């Protein structure tokens, strides 16, 4: 029986991937070191499930990619979902030095995007600030034995000694997972790449930096098409940058990009080669009563994600998450407050730069719920149907196997109840910027600095 405080009298919702109210989230696993001293290189900078949810990739500031694979569910324990174990680890990007500008190029992995699987191997795109790489991850669990011309240890056999002919046979061997870079897409971005997105045609993908968006073909590395360029002729006039971009999940000619002024532009690549003129322009009119010096900064969109259906898109700005209907440009259809209690602290957050933190957001598989991160290792989930929301915490204290996560609450004023935490006690160093939701099940991955938490729902 569900003892979650949220679903007091809610009837059990329809089966399938639901929101946060008819089941509870439980701790499943945590990956990463426990030390208090976190090495900068270990900080996770991106998290992404593949299309089937079998693989979970993370990238960190040290340029490494770690891929976890879900183990097959055991028939002995049907209630426990498969665990994620390390499948492959490789160094995707190395730090570089731009000699012309005398500046380092960070090896931090900004984004990882999986390609749909087409054969036994898995492919993913990983990018740092300047270079995108296509990695092939393949398994090898057999090897051929019984060669004619060489021994088992590789030495060539003396041809005159060979008297019989044999056919090599495939023998099993320990599983070896190899990651090899298949394509390197470099030198196309002057500014820092913030997004990559694989197109629904599975042949092209786009990459976006602060001022430009390029369209690539996965097979071609020495050329890309520039499809958006908002760089002003005179850089003195620069007031707006691109913050995120994504391809439409079904229409390969459509993509969106968001800006630092809180606007989203939808572009159709059929209209023109250079999509500087948008097809649709999404902006919510500002509320004049809440205008302040920080209005623009907190309206800057840090992430944009299409729903799986392709009908909606979600944007994350500093204090809220908004769901937009692609057919309605003048305002979002839903707005969810993530941490409204921070609105009175904006000046302090501006001073310590937290106001510039870029939070991501994600949909669940059925588009009925959305999730995003906050501070103090809190993350928030919103059920779009019931309009319920829940705040959970990713912490080692709640890390007993299959322990139910207790909802957290931030006290905004007045008397602080037991178990509540006051705004002034929040730890702004512990921020959850990257979260991912399994495409089909209620399994979520939450990156808390250098630790990756995996939570699952408890099947009732």
């Amino acid at each position, binding site marked *: 029986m569900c003892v979650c405080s949220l679903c007091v009298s809610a009837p059990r919702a329809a089966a399938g991937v639901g929101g946060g109210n008819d089941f509870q989230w439980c701790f499943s696993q945590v990956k990463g070191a426990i030390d208090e001293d976190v090495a900068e290189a270990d900080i996770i900078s991106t998290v992404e499930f593949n299309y089937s949810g079998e693989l979970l990739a993370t990238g960190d500031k040290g340029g490494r990619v770690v891929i976890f694979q879900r183990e097959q569910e055991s028939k002995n324990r049907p209630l426990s979902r498969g665990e994620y174990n390390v499948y492959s680890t490789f160094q995707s990007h190395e730090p570089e030095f*731009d*000699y*012309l*500008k*005398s*500046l*380092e*190029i*960070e090896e931090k992995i900004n984004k990882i995007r999986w390609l749909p699987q087409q054969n036994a191997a898995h492919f993913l795109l990983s990018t740092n*600030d300047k270079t995108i790489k296509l990695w092939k991850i393949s398994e090898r669990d057999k090897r051929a034995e019984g060669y004619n011309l060489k021994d088992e240890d590789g030495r060539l056999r003396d041809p005159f000694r060979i008297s019989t002919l044999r056919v090599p046979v495939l023998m099993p061997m320990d599983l070896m997972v190899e990651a090899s870079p298949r394509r390197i897409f470099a*030198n196309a971005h*002057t*500014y*820092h790449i913030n997004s990559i997105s694989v197109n629904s045609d599975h042949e092209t993908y786009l990459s976006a930096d*602060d*001022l430009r968006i390029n369209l690539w073909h996965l097979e071609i590395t020495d050329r890309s098409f520039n499809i958006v360029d908002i760089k002003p*002729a*005179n*850089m*003195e*006039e*620069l*007031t*707006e*940058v691109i*913050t995120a971009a994504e391809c439409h999940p079904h229409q390969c000619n459509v993509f969106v990009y968001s800006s*630092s002024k809180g606007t989203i532009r939808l572009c159709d690549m059929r209209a023109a080669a250079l999509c500087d003129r948008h097809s649709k322009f999404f902006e919510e009119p500002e509320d004049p009563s809440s205008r*302040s*010096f*920080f*209005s*623009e*900064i907190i309206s*800057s969109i840090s992430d944009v994600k299409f729903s799986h259906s392709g009908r909606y898109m979600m944007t994350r700005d500093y204090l809220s998450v908004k769901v937009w209907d692609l057919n309605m440009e003048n305002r979002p259809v839903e707005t969810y407050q993530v941490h409204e209690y921070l*609105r*009175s*602290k*904006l*000046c*302090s*957050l*501006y*001073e*310590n*730069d*937290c106001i*510039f933190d870029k939070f991501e957001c994600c949909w669940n598989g059925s588009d009925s719920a959305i999730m995003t991160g906050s501070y103090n290792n809190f993350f928030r989930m919103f059920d779009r149907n019931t309009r319920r929301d829940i705040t959970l915490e990713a912490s080692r204290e709640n890390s007993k196997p299959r322990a139910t996560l207790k909802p957290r609450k931030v006290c905004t004023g007045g008397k602080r109840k037991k178990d509540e935490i006051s*705004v*002034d*006690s*929040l*730890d*702004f*160093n*512990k921020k959850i910027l990257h979260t991912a939701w399994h495409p089909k099940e209620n399994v979520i991955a939450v990156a808390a600095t250098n630790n990756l938490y995996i939570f699952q729902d408890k099947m009732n």
Partner: protein
Amino acid sequence: MSACTLVSVSTVLGCHSCSRIDMFSKGTKRKFSDDGDEMLDESLAGAQVSSSYSLQRQSLLDMSLIKLQLCHMLVEPNLCRSVLIANTVRQIQEEMTHDGSWQVVTEAFCGGSQSPSERLVATEVLCRSREQDAEPKLFSVLSYEGCREEEVVADETLCSVSVSDTASNVCLSESARHCWERDELVDADRDDETCESSRLGPGDDEDDDDEDDDDEDEEVDIDEESPRDNPKTMGQVFGTFEIKNGTPGPDSALEELFSDVDASYYDLDTMLTGIQSAPKMGPYDLLDSLAPSHGPPSIGSPSSCRSDLNELDHIMEIIVGS
């Protein structure tokens, strides 16, 4: 990320209610009383709240300018962050212009020796960001191993603020600006636009030489120039070689401001063969020494606001120039 403790400016600006207006304004009133606070009050109708609002707005402006100054020396700074901060500065300026307080602040801070006209906003941090030996700042990159990202290579003194009465001219962080100039250097090579690539050249050095002569130690004196539009001049934080070869006026004024650093930036040879210099204490070092920030940064609690005020006084003192 820098873990500087927070000053108590948190509530008035952009917020709904403030419980500390009185405390803050009392403190700063003491500070500014010798420097023309009376003028400020008269101009702003003497209302306590409004004068404290404008003081806090001023400190937000200063904070923003310092943020633009403290760009990462190892890695290219975040363009989105710089754009947002620059837009904030522009917004403050516009409001101050409409208020008429831009004029007042100019008069309050200008010394008698310099005419208030045609001057750019600058803090001493921006003016005197380098040693006299004119080494390229960017090569201190390699000596910054242990330094946090936001330490500035600058003089330790935040001296007087010189403010323009033409609100449109804002002199923003030179290092941020030069970060973008370096950016454009590469961009020029790659772009098809010939207009950019044509801006590289010896012409840059000539401008530098002129401005070097005009540079002063204290506040930088900008030559007569016509006020530019806000966006145009504000955007010089993303400055490019276009600034150098643009129309005379604010460009040359800006050049003068940054002159002791500029030459090396535009000189490729110097860039590639520069000498490292030791890091100097920057304003964030000052903040650090005032307020040790061990542990997680948290929003100033009421119990620490008194010490925050003292620190704020100290910082304001330095900025204003006692």
